[in-house]
């Protein structure tokens, strides 16, 4: 009998509600880590570009550190360390959210730094010459442009983030992958579930990358 003939796809239907809860967590984790990561990343980028040397150095260190350690290790570390620091257990889901936000901030900060540097210095001078302070110019002139210029790359990073969230499997958080695994065990049909979940990842990521492509061409016109 061939491989495909052995598959029993009928187990997917009844598992959908359960897998759906896993997908919801994956999406929630992605959205929170993206939002938090971009905000924190922007602050880190501003710190790295700041003339205040200790601040720039601290931010640089943070970014380099996060980017030099495997994500899986960071996930495990935070999962073990945060309860020690706070003195109470916090659960795999919350730990994952905090970890991803802090980790992704390092990557988003590099993107935002490039974005800020892509805005010509004349824009800052133009803002100041009309009476705006450095921070007003940053907020109304530089960051909006940096964000717009970098939007496709920020979204590409978010697609990677979406895929990376599957690593929370390691600490037992119930994400899309974990849900599929549990469902697979329930029906003793792991291969079908893994194939299905791969399909779900693919559809979402592919749709997002088409969106990025579309955005890129639109933004290219505005520039």
């Amino acid at each position, binding site marked *: 009998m061939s491989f495909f003939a052995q598959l029993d796809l009928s187990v997917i239907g009844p598992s959908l509600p359960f897998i759906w809860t896993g997908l919801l967590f994956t999406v929630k984790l992605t959205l929170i880590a993206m939002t938090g990561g971009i905000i924190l990343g922007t602050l880190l980028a501003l710190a790295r570009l700041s003339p205040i040397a200790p601040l720039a150095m601290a931010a640089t260190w943070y970014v380099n550190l996060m980017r030099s350690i495997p994500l899986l290790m960071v996930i495990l570390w935070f999962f073990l360390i945060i309860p020690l620091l706070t003195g109470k257990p916090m659960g795999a889901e919350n730990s994952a959210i905090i970890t991803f936000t802090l980790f992704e901030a390092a990557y988003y900060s590099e993107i935002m730094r490039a974005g800020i540097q892509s805005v*010509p210095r004349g824009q800052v*001078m*133009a*803002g*100041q010459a*009309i*009476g*705006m302070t450095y921070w007003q110019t940053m907020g109304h002139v530089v960051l909006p442009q940096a964000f717009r210029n970098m939007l496709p790359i920020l979204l590409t990073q978010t697609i990677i983030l979406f895929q990376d969230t599957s690593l929370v499997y390691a600490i037992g958080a119930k994400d899309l992958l974990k849900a599929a695994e549990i469902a697979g065990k329930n029906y003793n049909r792991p291969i079908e579930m893994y194939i299905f979940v791969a399909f779900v990842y693919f559809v979402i990521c592919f749709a997002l990358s088409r969106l990025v492509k579309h955005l890129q061409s639109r933004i290219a016109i505005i520039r």
Partner: protein
Amino acid sequence: MSLLVLNHISHAYGHFAVVKDLSLKLGEGEIGCLLGTSGCGKTTVLRLIAGFETPSEGRILLRDELIATHERQVAPEKRRIGMVFQDYALFPHLNIAANIGFGLRDHAADKANTRVEELLAIVGLAGLGHKFPHELSGGQQQRVALARALAPRPHLLLLDEPFSNLDVELRERLSLEVRNILKQTGTAAILVTHDQHEAFAVADVIGIMHTGRIEQWDTPYNLYHRPATRQVADFVGQGVFLPGQVIDRDTVAIELGMLKSQLPLECTQSCMTCGKGCALDILIRPDDIVHDDNAPTQAKVAAKAFRGADFLYTLKLASGAQVLSLVPSHHNHAIGEHIGIRLDVDHVVAFRQIA
């Protein structure tokens, strides 16, 4: 009262001195210009006035208020000095009206809107407020940049090579327009350029900059007709130096004859003490040499450039020295031909010969 005073300003990038002991004064409503080749330090002076650089020595005062010394700097945004940039530096994510209104954020919305409309009308872009910068031509973008800089009613406007990205025709038209707008709004300004036509068209008073110094701060007329230094004479307008010898207090002999000056001999650079027989270089402008078929002095046409209304001839004298002559274009002579010329010098500009 002077609006802007630069008092013995110096500035260096590292050990490289870009601005050296520079002083100037600009009156209310006056349009000044810093004219010089690239690298002469003129843009740095602008940036010092705007507050984007700190002088290493000297003081800058705006309306009698100290805005910059080497230890105290008023922040650029607090100086009320507007700036127009070479690349316009419009905000690409905002439409024209928002660009112009950007400096009016602390105004009430309706007041800001009125001001934006007023400025759009002044710069001739009424009705285009909803467009985005990339939808406008270069000339229109520079008008927006001007309107944006004028919106908060600055005490002083700085223009950094504002027309150099535009084609020649538009450059001439816009430079006159900008002068009119500045005069109409009573805004004092300093323009930086390397183009003397632009400087002459826009400015009331021009400073010729050379290696970080102002050689002469004067009216365009005086710069052309009474250059204070050899660099100014060289840089402003066309002309050549011919060797001459002092005969007496108001007569100089050059190859083309005696120059009797109606004015006392202008011997502005260190040769006041120079007496009879002293060797000078005499500045001869193209309009000092008049083509006259009946003139006894002959010169050979070495080169010619057609300029429409006239020819600019390069003429070789008997000694081999060359002079320039501006001749109405119906006098079309071939290269190599000998033509009659005579001197028509209204006043003598002379510098001591460099040994």
